[in-house]
């Protein structure tokens, strides 16, 4: 039976690769929207910094290089782009035998490329770098899809991916709701903003295909939360999680947490977006915690913290103590 430690590494590999991809998507969308809002200072979009655990109030004051330095290139912050890739790489390094050999080449090359970037890189190069992250993440997904045994390691990788994908989608939507939407839902450039949200979570073309029209609140929400055929929706993620849990030894607490998430998916759209997002995020957090509690092991010194500090949330057990590293090397 799969060691809990390896399952944990596979789970966090999935989470961190997905986090890097979703953060890149959000930042790419941000760049595009900024250019489409003439005369405005793209109000509040710095709040995307919260996805990387950087305080939005601080992010507003940052110049572009400092913003890139903190949100993209801060290796010590496991929610920044480079930090996520570093954590993903460390998790893969410990589980290489579970995955197709080419996964290491892909992830390692990507990490080295992002690690070599300078905070002052010009916008066009930044854009290329973010696109490269998205492409490499898709490449990894392809390598796993065609090259990996459908075993327990596969199940835990996917559990991590889907939890994180739903989590990041909701956080992105929540940020938009909290900072961009006046109470009457009619801000300037409203459709640009909604389109921006759709782009940032990779839902733009799907939305167009389905609704044709300008984006609005109800249909956007409908797609992102409740549409099971849309692969980046909350409903789809929960369906996949349900399927992967089916392959593992059954655990009551996990099943209960999943059912609670599925029930909250039946929320009515008359609620404020913030409330819907908060409820769904809390449900996912409980589900993630239940999975860890039931199957995985938490390494010493890596207790998850609660509260607003995204940077310290969901840190994988990669930060081994200096003492441990010294003993590993010495023994």
């Amino acid at each position, binding site marked *: *039976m799969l060691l809990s430690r390896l399952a944990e590494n596979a789970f966090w590999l999935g989470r961190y690769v997905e986090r890097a991809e979703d953060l890149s998507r959000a930042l790419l969308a941000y760049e595009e929207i900024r250019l489409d809002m003439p005369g405005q200072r793209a109000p509040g979009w710095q709040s995307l910094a919260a996805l990387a655990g950087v305080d939005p109030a601080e992010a507003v004051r940052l110049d572009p290089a400092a913003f890139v330095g903190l949100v993209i290139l801060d290796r010590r912050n496991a929610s920044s782009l480079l930090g996520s890739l570093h954590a993903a790489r460390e998790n893969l390094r410990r589980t*290489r035998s579970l995955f197709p050999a080419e996964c290491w080449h892909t992830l390692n090359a990507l990490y080295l490329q992002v690690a070599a970037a300078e905070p002052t890189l010009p916008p066009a190069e930044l854009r290329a770098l973010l696109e490269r992250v998205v492409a490499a993440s898709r490449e990894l997904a392809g390598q796993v899809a065609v090259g990996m045994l459908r075993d327990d390691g596969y199940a835990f990788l996917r559990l991590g991916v889907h939890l994180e994908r739903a989590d990041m989608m909701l956080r992105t939507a929540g940020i938009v709701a909290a900072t961009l939407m006046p109470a009457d839902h009619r801000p300037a450039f409203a459709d640009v903003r909604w389109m921006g949200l759709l782009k940032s979570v990779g839902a733009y073309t799907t939305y167009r295909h389905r609704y044709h029209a300008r984006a609005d609140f109800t249909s956007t929400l409908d797609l992102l939360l409740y549409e099971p055929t849309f692969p980046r929706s909350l409903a789809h993620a929960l369906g996949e999680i349900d399927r992967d849990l089916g392959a593992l030894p059954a655990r009551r607490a996990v099943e209960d947490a999943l059912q609670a998430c599925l029930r909250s998916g039946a929320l009515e759209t008359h609620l404020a977006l913030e409330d819907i997002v908060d409820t769904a995020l809390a449900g996912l957090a409980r589900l993630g915690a239940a999975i860890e509690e039931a199957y995985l092991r938490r390494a010493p010194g890596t207790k998850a913290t609660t509260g607003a500090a995204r940077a310290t949330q969901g840190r994988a057990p990669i930060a081994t103590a200096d003492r441990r590293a010294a003993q590993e090397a010495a*023994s």
Partner: protein
Amino acid sequence: MLWSAYRSQTYDELLGPDGHPRPGARALSDYIAGLGVAELEGRQRAATAEIRAAGITFVVAAQEGNIDREWPFDVIPRVMPADEWARIERGLAQRLAALNCFIDDLYNAGRVLKDKILPAEVLETSRYFLGACRGMRPRHGVWAHVCGSDLVRDEDGTVYVLEDNLRVPSGVSYMLENRSITKRVFPELFHDQRISPIDGYTSRLYELLVSLAPERVTQPTVVLLTPGVGNAAYFEHCYLAQQMGIELVEGSDLVVDDDHVYMKTIAGLERVDVIYRRIGDAHLDPETFNPGSVIGCAGLMRAWRAGNVALANAPGAGVADDKLVYSYVPDLIRYYLREDAILPNVPTFRLCDERQRRHVLEDLRRFVVKPVNESGGTGVLVGSKAEPGELERCRAAVEADPRNFVAQPIVQLSTAPTLCDGAVEPRHLDLRPFVLSGKETYVTRGGLTRVALRRGSLVVNSCQGGGSKDTFVVETSGGM
């Protein structure tokens, strides 16, 4: 002609003093000469690319944290005639038989001390003698299941045992990988000569580990215990676990309950019967040894003593690894087996003996001085290459703690042709064969050849810039 400019200052493994190939080496020397340097360099690049693609690495501790280095490999193999190898094989088997008798005796009756073959002080001051192992009788009477002994050849061609590594010897995965690379870059070499295959090692190791399981267990669960990803030999730990199809566990994956060892899986606890541990004794069990260990598992020694889990190598086996004990090995072979040692020791001066100490300190430059309990070349002083200051510091250290040092005359290690910066030049090397001891003894055909890549250097350790070569044991009876 490639060989016309090739001259070694000492014994060369490939060519004799007259420039003709040694027994078994003709096919290789002709082949190398036929390729020429440019083609050799092409093959070297192919080998390096192969190593990179396969991710064959070892970890070097650096300021920036640990980093993976690609395994340094020289494409020109080293040749050993099969009849000479047969003698070395017998010598190693004999040596391990005696060493295992010795360890078992030390932790039980202690006859070797009562008969005054080994002075009791040597034991009392040994860092690797563990009181917690007294009275234990591991299966087959074997404590050192896996041994890597280092062999060197001096200028007159004699092969000596330089040291025995009985704690957690590493390198066997590189021996196996070196062969698989050579087969890819020099397939022609294997067509017209008989080179012994070496790939049976991991199956032998697995069979040995299974044979150590507690008697009542019919289908034992075997695991490999690693210190973790920061260890220099982590690649090897992964490699061996994968080759044997066993779990690679870390200390925190294990838990001892009711004197049984379990590993934590996603379905709960699963019992473990045999542990091939690659963690040193000191870190093995914080309950018994170093209480600060975070890479071991508390209670492991209790489970081992209760006979509920087998550990390979057994705790305490390192007592025979002490370089002062090494100096007694020929006596131990005579004592336990009533045979003369087939493979000689390098003459060794015991610096705790006043007369021997004075002799050595008279001219330190003629000796190699080694701390008795280190490995990987740590703390070793080569007198002929040392600065005056280093010599003085060494002298002071020896006088402060003579039990902690031995001295040996400098052995001019033999050389073999090595590709260096566009030329084929002689470089010094040693050889580490691996010995598996259980109900039967198995010695690898050849071993890991380590080569000093700098001209004139005698330091072959991988962590100090050494490289490696494939080792061919070649049948010579066919008239080659």
